């Protein structure tokens, strides 16, 4: 056969180079696609930090950049959780902030005047490009097919399940953690395949980085030991397993203990015990393996049985004793809710109140993964066909992550990488089968004469496969259609569901142009510019981080929900009568109270709709004073109109939401557009608070807490007096008249 120019490019040494270059270009394109598909919100809105938690991370990063690493490490923040404050440096995962801090300083070193905000906004897309690369490496370790890695990288780049947490502006721990997760797993598989200390140490290093970045590191801490354990049970002990696991565990644990927030947890917390246990078990197995070389078979059997029973008994006893004595911490509440989805709702309402802790709805799987979800089982099945160590890993990961993703919405994130791996395995196998296997006299086998090194494999096996062009074409077309649908779906989901900053709301004007509803920032900026620097703001905890970040004012509670009582105090102040709430506000130095009200605009995520959680959380601490039942009508309805219960109508939250709202309408015509009800004729009266600011669309309402009355009256009386209600004065006049001598 004459050598055509393409042959020169595709065969032999230059062929390898060409393929390498192609692969590099494809990967670069995938990374670019991954980055660019996450930029919807920047293009549509602006470079802005999204949602709630990212605002805290952003604020912490700014602190790190301004004050340096050591003062960040020792940061005591007196502007959150007033009056408690927060030892922020010791209670966060610093990986994210340090990463952006390093990037910032490198760029500054190269004298690029880049704003730290832009680094924070674009960190997640940037790392998603890296995740695609890491996914390529991981899949290449699992599959011999060269196309699987590229497919997996492409899937990972644009799959909505991952995009949901990594769009531009979503500056959260997950932004870098998923990259670290995938890359650690890649290194781990590399280590266990080669039995190499270097790869094991690298895996430990990245595991340490992961620990510093995200609380989800526990997933790795349990998955790798489980992998090793399963390998042991399958009788696949080898020095490779021993070397890689011991290296990873020893170095990784030490690395993880450097993070103050983790500290001694790896040896004291139940979540980490499996890793320690497998470490011990591995030593025993290694020892047994060693002994087997010296002892005859029969003796060895007896020795082994005794040893196993003895060690197991001692370990179990020790574990029970340590748990009972409290040296090992019991399982955390969030952990229990992983096994029993009803647990949180009963015991910890505050965990249940977070929407991302809810169990996943079935459609969410298709929404987040599209056609990958039905390729996924096929991919897992493919792993069984060729069950090497790394395939065992994929199977374990798939099973565990599937379960967790079903329990909690946010854990969809950990499922996504393995779905990409498995479906890339399945799809690449389909493609390989249909594209490469050819019909009749094989042109490739002729080419094999020239390159005997490649010919060996095909020469060994007779050519089997699909030979009909029709079925090839049919299969390829359908795969291409599925892929196109997948891309369209991902783009649509990203654009519509995951690219809203939620700080800024977008709507359409009648002429189709975009209208931006910017009430949050309007009110926060008002607070920032026109209140005292130390004015304490009370709001429901959802807005704590945003107030800290955008308004730069101290808050009572924020999204870091470790202190249930403090949050319940705020819940109680919101859900009680003014007479009860006012002392609480005074005791906590509250200057302003901020509520979110969507009634005018029909914005459903407002505080009245969240109100029942406040009541529930308050009830958890003060069951005698707050009762959820009182907020429902006799027929069990949650109403805000004329039928609302007195408790509801007298609660501070209700009053603050609807105060003065009537005056915007004709008398008796006030409508709440979220609840879709007419409001009572008479609006609520406030005596201990005064309206300080209301944003343009009434989404944010800020109230100022009145100071104590000058004359020592309570505010109710003072208000009545000011309004000219004569009754009080008349009763007073009945007393003996006193001559004023001034």
């Amino acid at each position, binding site marked *: 056969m004459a050598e055509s120019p393409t042959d020169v490019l595709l065969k032999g040494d230059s062929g390898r180079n060409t393929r390498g270059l192609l692969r590099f270009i494809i990967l670069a394109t995938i990374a670019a696609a991954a980055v660019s598909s996450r930029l919807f919100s920047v293009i549509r809105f602006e470079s802005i930090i999204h949602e709630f938690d990212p605002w805290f991370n952003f604020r912490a990063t700014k602190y790190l950049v301004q004050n340096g690493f050591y003062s960040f490490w020792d940061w005591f923040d007196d502007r959150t959780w007033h009056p408690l404050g927060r030892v922020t440096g010791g209670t966060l995962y610093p990986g994210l902030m340090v990463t952006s801090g390093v990037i910032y300083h490198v760029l500054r070193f190269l004298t690029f005047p880049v704003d730290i905000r832009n680094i924070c906004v674009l960190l997640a897309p940037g790392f998603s490009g890296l995740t695609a690369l890491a996914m390529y490496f991981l899949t290449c370790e699992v599959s011999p097919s060269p196309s699987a890695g590229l497919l997996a990288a492409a899937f990972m780049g644009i799959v909505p399940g991952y995009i949901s947490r990594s769009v531009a502006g979503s500056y959260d721990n997950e932004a870098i953690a998923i990259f670290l997760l995938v890359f650690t797993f890649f290194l781990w598989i590399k280590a266990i395949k080669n039995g190499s200390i270097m790869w094991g140490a690298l895996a430990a290093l990245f595991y340490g980085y992961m620990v510093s970045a995200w609380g989800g590191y526990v997933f790795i801490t349990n998955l790798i030991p489980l992998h090793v354990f399963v390998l042991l049970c399958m009788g696949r002990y080898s020095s490779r397993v021993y070397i890689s696991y011991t290296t990873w565990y020893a170095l990784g644990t030490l690395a993880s203990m450097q993070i103050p927030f983790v500290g001694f947890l790896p040896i004291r917390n139940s979540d980490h015990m499996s890793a320690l246990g497998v470490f011990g078990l591995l030593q025993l197995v290694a020892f047994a393996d060693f002994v087997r070389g010296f002892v005859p078979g029969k003796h060895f059997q007896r020795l082994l049985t005794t040893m196993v029973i003895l060690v197991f008994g001692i370990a179990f006893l020790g574990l029970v004793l340590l748990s009972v004595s409290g040296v090992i911490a019991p399982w955390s509440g969030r952990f229990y809710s992983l096994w029993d989805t009803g647990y949180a709702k009963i015991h910890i309402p505050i965990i249940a109140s977070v929407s991302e802790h809810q169990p996943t709805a079935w459609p969410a799987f298709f929404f987040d993964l599209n056609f990958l979800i039905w390729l996924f089982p096929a991919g897992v099945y493919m792993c069984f066909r060729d069950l090497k160590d790394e395939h065992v890993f994929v199977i374990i990961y798939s099973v565990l992550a599937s379960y967790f993703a079903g329990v909690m919405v946010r854990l969809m994130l950990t499922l996504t990488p393995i779905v990409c791996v498995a479906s890339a395995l399945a799809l690449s196998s389909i493609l390989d089968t249909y594209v490469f296997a050819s019909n009749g006299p094989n042109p490739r086998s002729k080419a094999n004469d020239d390159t005997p090194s490649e010919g060996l494999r095909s020469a060994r096996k007779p050519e089997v496969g699909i030979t009909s062009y029709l079925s090839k074409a049919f299969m390829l077309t359908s795969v291409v259609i599925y892929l196109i649908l997948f891309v369209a779906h991902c783009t649509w989901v990203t654009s519509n569901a995951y690219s809203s900053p939620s700080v800024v709301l977008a709507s359409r004007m009648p002429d189709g142009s975009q209208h931006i509803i910017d009430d949050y920032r309007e009110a926060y900026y008002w607070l920032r510019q026109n209140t005292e620097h130390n004015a304490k703001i009370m709001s429901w905890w959802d807005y704590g981080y945003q107030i800290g970040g*955008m308004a730069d004012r101290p808050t009572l509670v924020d999204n870091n929900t470790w202190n249930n009582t403090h949050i319940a105090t705020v819940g109680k102040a919101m859900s009680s009568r003014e007479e009860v709430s006012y002392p609480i506000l005074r005791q906590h130095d509250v200057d302003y109270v901020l509520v979110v009200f969507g009634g005018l605009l029909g914005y459903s995520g407002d505080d009245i709709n969240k109100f029942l959680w406040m009541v529930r959380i308050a009830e958890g601490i003060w069951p005698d004073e707050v009762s959820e039942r009182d907020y429902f009508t006799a027929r069990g309805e949650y109403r805000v109109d004329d039928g609302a219960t007195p408790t509801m109508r007298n609660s501070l939250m209700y009053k603050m939401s609807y105060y003065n709202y009537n005056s915007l309408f004709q008398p008796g015509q006030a409508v709440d557009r979220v609840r879709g009800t007419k409001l009572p004729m008479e609006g609520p009266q406030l005596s201990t608070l005064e*309206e300080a*600011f*209301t944003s343009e669309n*009434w989404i944010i309402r800020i109230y100022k807490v009145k100071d104590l009355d000058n004359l020592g009256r309570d505010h109710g009386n003072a208000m009545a007096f000011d309004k000219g209600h004569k009754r009080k004065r008349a009763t007073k006049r009945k007393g003996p008249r006193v001559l004023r001598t001034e």
Partner: protein
Amino acid sequence: MRPFTALSALCGLFLSASSFVGADSTTSPSRVALPRDFKPPQVFKNANLVRTSNLEKGYLRETVNVVVENVDTQPQSDYYLSFPSDLYDKVGALEVRDKTAPENGRFDVEATEFSPGSDFQYFIVHLPKPLAPSSQITLGISYAVLNSLRPRPAAISQNDRQFLAHSFSAYAPSAYTTVTQKTKLKLPSTSVPDYTTTDLTSGPDPQRQGTTYTYGPYDTANVAPGTFYPINIRYEFTKPVITASLLERDLEVSHWGGNLATEERYWLRNNGSKLTDNFSRVEWTISSYQQLPSSSIRELKYPLKPGSVDPYFTDDIGNVSTSHYRPGKVPNREGSLEIRPRYPIFGSWNYSFRIGWNNDLSAFLRRAVTGADSYVLRVPFIEGPKVAEGIQYEKVVVRVVLPEGARNVQYETLEKSSSNGLPSASQIHSHISSYKTFMDTLGRTTLTLTVEGLTDEARDSQLLLTYDYSLWDSLRKPVTITAGLLTVFVAAWAVGNIDVSIKKR
């Protein structure tokens, strides 16, 4: 330690040869120290003095035309201008000219150190030619007084009308005896609820004519200089009193991009009456629907030069979506940037923001006729929003960032026959430094000008800059970056060639 910077700095130095910019050349406003209890020598007499106080804007703008006569036996050249101590620091944009020949330019004016014990503080006007004994000169003195108008009542409710109070002395403060004088007040409206009436003249005092109130003329030949006769006037001003406590204005010149980038950072405050009750959204919605006048800043219109592109309007927490830009047209239709703050700014409220835009450099820069490598840059000193109620700037910092390697920087402000709203050159603090950005090696030459006490009358003033900039300077950066990258590649290649394996070869 810092290999890249060190390297690039080295390359830069190597290439720049002799383009060393004087690291620091600073001029501060000079102030003359006067002895304690200084009294200006009584060598002049004000034959006639007419003071015009313009109150149509949110600050006081005064013009004093005075006929000065030398009563000494020697020719005299130093005329002392006196101000009450509480106003002295608020005086801005002071300018003195010969009224009969304004095109001859302004006289040199020097400020004096503030002396704490004295009731009056002085500026010294240096007449260009000493005034011969018993000859006369007519001085036209103009200045603005910032933050001197007080809102009375100090707190009003949201839809109330706002009133400002202006207090002054019927006798214009002067260091010299004044024979006759009068004061004209130009008010923004006819709604003047309170004003002082005097019996210093035979007729009614003040005389009213529309919105103009005239106190005097008084015959004050026997009144000692510095006598205080209090006059208060309170007039309606239902507009915001817009005050920028600081304006930072950056102009960045790029020869490569042919671009002049402007960024301005404002710290605004409304000095009007506070709100008695808190802000009510309901009332605000109704009153803005009816377009009632308000004492709050609702919107600022910012005219931009023709050809301005890419405007932005942001504040500390991101883009402010409530702005519009109507682009202008080259050559002469101005663009208009309509800035609407996030919330209406009522009395004592603050709002800080930044705006910026780009212009084609060719409209502002040209080669000087004197030398091939010499350039002349002509830019507005300040621009700022154009509003009827005026804006007062307490402090303005203008920073002109010239290309890397520019040297021999000289500047001047353009003078016209009438006031350009800027104080004399000696009151402008200038400073030359270097500013490193975007992979600079030497840093860009930066001229910083600081002025205190400006008003929006300085909008039309122009700043003229000349500097030298050679072809070598423009090529420095590409060459440096190329050299830097080459070094990195060579280093990588060298490191890659080192065999670190522990295998036996």
